[in-house]
């Protein structure tokens, strides 16, 4: 198994996430897609740690931090969604159109 394999998986995961962010109509869908993108970065980090820089653990450690931060983001995002759902009754982003130029 070469590094290229892992990087390819990460890249594809990132792109799928990107696609989801751009196309999911539901906020939760977007949120999940963003999680995919974060995880793509984690795969990258773990793979680099293993293949290129095995002397330290910085990559893995950073991945841990990212997991935690991503969790925090999801929490805030979902809470925000609850609030907005209470006021607007929708979770679809195209309905968020009160603010426009």
């Amino acid at each position, binding site marked *: 198994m070469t590094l*290229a394999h892992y990087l390819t998986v990460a890249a594809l995961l990132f792109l799928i996430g990107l696609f989801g962010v751009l196309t999911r109509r539901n906020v939760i869908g977007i949120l999940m897609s963003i*999680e995919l993108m974060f995880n793509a970065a984690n795969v990258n980090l773990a793979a680099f740690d293993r293949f*290129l820089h*095995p002397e330290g653990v910085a990559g893995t450690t950073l991945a841990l931090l990212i997991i935690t931060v991503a969790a925090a983001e999801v929490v805030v995002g979902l809470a925000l969604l609850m609030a907005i759902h209470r006021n607007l009754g929708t979770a679809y982003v195209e309905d968020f159109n009160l603010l426009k130029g």
Partner: protein
Amino acid sequence: MLEHIVFYSLSTLVLVCAIGVVTMRNTVHSALCLGLCLAGLAGLFASLGADFLFAAQVMVYVSGIAVLIIFTVMLLGRASDLHLRQVNDQWMAALLICAVSSEGLLKIARFFSGTLATTAAKPATRDIGRLFLGEWMIPFELVSLVLMAALLGAIFFSRSEASR
């Protein structure tokens, strides 16, 4: 050989589930796909020898975040949503963007097509702990502040108006 089987099966699982996440019409199904996908990723971490990361992934993501999302979906979901398309009309443009970007990203991947692991994987938990309590103390502590802020936000937003 085993390594190959593990990698290919796990990555297939991860990618198929990821596609499921972004294409499933039913959000609950999407969320379940996400859980599976994250689990598959945990497996990939394990195959890379990142044992602690594997554990964290399983604990935080698979059992934490995915479940949280499923709960929220359930909470907010409406029966009518199940019949709605979940993908908006700019999917073609998005696909184009992804296709164009893949060119560059995959090129980077190809760049490392000969790179093999030089050393055996070793447990890193001790090193991680040392790093967190040593050089990386500040980020480590900061993450707790991030969580605290998220907590404050979550409490603030999810407390209903009526409870005032």
